[in-house]
């Protein structure tokens, strides 16, 4: 099983990072994250290593990258008519599922961590003044966990939305709807509940908030992965 997952990951790596078209597309995807982690640390100042913005970046960057990579990996196989042949091979469903899932997660998470280091380098060059600025432990832990959980949540959601999509575009549109659900929910929450929520938020400190976000993401992850894994079966992959 592990060998099969690695085989699928090998192919995904080739298609994500190799090929002239993929190369330029990948660089385009990285433009915003690079700007986020170079310009913002300069404008934010030395507080970048102790404040919450690197955490926002750690959530947004992998989510952005994976929102492009996962639909391309799952729905893209169908759109490019390579899925049938892959399903006709001896690869088990699980190997295809995990191989296709893990490759974008590794890339998304890796890029997020790498860009956090870039932002650290930038803030040191711009505001270090001879002193080495390092992320505080909660911020460093937050970057590690949030970027990972953001990657997995988005990957799971990406698989779910891709399974019944004929094209990459359709899958990405569905994923966009999925992402906006929490924002819509907040808007439709009864006013009283919203006020209680805001009051509660004011009582928690940064670390507690971090733990709450991590727990919420883990719960969402488990749910999304369970549904995606159940639905990822060969016989359910045909849309006709």
């Amino acid at each position, binding site marked *: 099983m592990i060998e*099969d997952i690695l085989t699928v990951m*090998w192919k995904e790596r080739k298609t994500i990072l*190799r*090929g002239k078209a993929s190369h330029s597309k990948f660089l385009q995807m990285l433009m915003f994250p690079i700007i986020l982690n170079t310009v913002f640390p300069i404008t934010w100042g030395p507080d970048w290593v102790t404040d919450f913005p690197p955490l926002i970046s750690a959530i947004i960057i992998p989510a952005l990258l994976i929102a492009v990579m996962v639909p391309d990996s799952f729905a893209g196989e169908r759109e490019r*008519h390579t899925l049938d*042949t892959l399903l*006709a091979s*001896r690869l088990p469903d699980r190997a295809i599922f995990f191989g296709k899932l893990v490759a974008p997660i590794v890339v998304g998470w890796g890029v997020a961590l790498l860009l956090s280091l870039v932002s650290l380098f930038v803030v040191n060059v711009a505001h270090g003044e001879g002193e080495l600025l390092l992320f505080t432990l909660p911020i460093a832990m937050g970057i590690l966990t949030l970027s990972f959980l953001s990657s997995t949540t988005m990957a799971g959601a990406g698989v779910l939305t891709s399974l019944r999509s004929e094209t990459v575009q359709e899958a990405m549109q569905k994923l966009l709807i999925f992402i906006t659900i929490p924002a819509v929910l907040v808007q439709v929450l009864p006013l009283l509940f919203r006020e209680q929520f805001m009051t509660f938020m004011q009582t928690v400190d940064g670390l507690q908030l971090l733990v709450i976000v991590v727990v919420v993401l883990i719960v969402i992850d488990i749910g999304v992965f369970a549904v995606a894994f159940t639905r990822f079966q060969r016989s359910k992959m045909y849309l006709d």
Partner: protein
Amino acid sequence: MRALNNLTFEVPAGKIFGFLGPNGAGKTTTIRLLLGLLEPTSGRVEVLGFDSSKQPDEVRARTGALLEYNGIYEQMSAEDNLEFYARIWRLPTVERQVRIKELLTQMGLWERRKELAGKWSKGMKQKLALARAILHQPPLIILDEPTAGLDVMAATSIRENLASLADSQGVTIFLTTHNMVEAERLCAQVAVIREGKLVALNDPDDLRVQFGGYRMEIVGSGFNEKTLTLLRARPEVSTAEVAGGQLTIYLGEETDTAPLISLLVDAGVAVKEVRRGKASLEEVFVALMEETR
């Protein structure tokens, strides 16, 4: 709606089996059933001794497939396309390299192995897809219209490869095609389906006799309505027609043709050439489709 209905057939081992039918007849559904990608609502599909519903992994592990679309990763090189599937089939590293080189050389693609497959012509991609299907030397290959849309040279090359696989390596090939000449040349046996039902199953020669009968083609001059009436009155003649200056006499069974030629000569026909033959598979196919409509 039933995609397939009471479909029963057996594919002879080591031969090329043609699976013919118009668009929407159920060919692709049959292939998906064979590969265990779909489960039948009733009935049983056995491939290489394995039940494709209960042991689909066993079936797929022993089968190579070139489906409706070639399944080539266009953003990967030809070599990487084969490398990926060689890894899937778990060929050892050294054997993998040897096999890829052997196949790409055999298909005339070795020199261009580093190029992105997306830049290749349809014929080259199809050859690459065929190489991918036989990479792990499976005992069974399933091919869904492998020569569709190819130029004559590319199609001929693919057909030669298929014939060689069956003849020299004893590979069983399940082939769907709309090209009746191809089916006639390659297949040891053909099945014809329409609306999910089997309408004919035989070797192409017998099928041509069974549904098209024997015929005589006569090139000459002096054919007229009187000649045709005389011919049609003969018990061994099913029908006769003139088209393009050629008289075709359809015979119910294989019969002595000398009396018919004498009859034509006596009626004033100048006979230049006489050919005996059978209906083409294409004619049989058309007749079968019209008969079952």
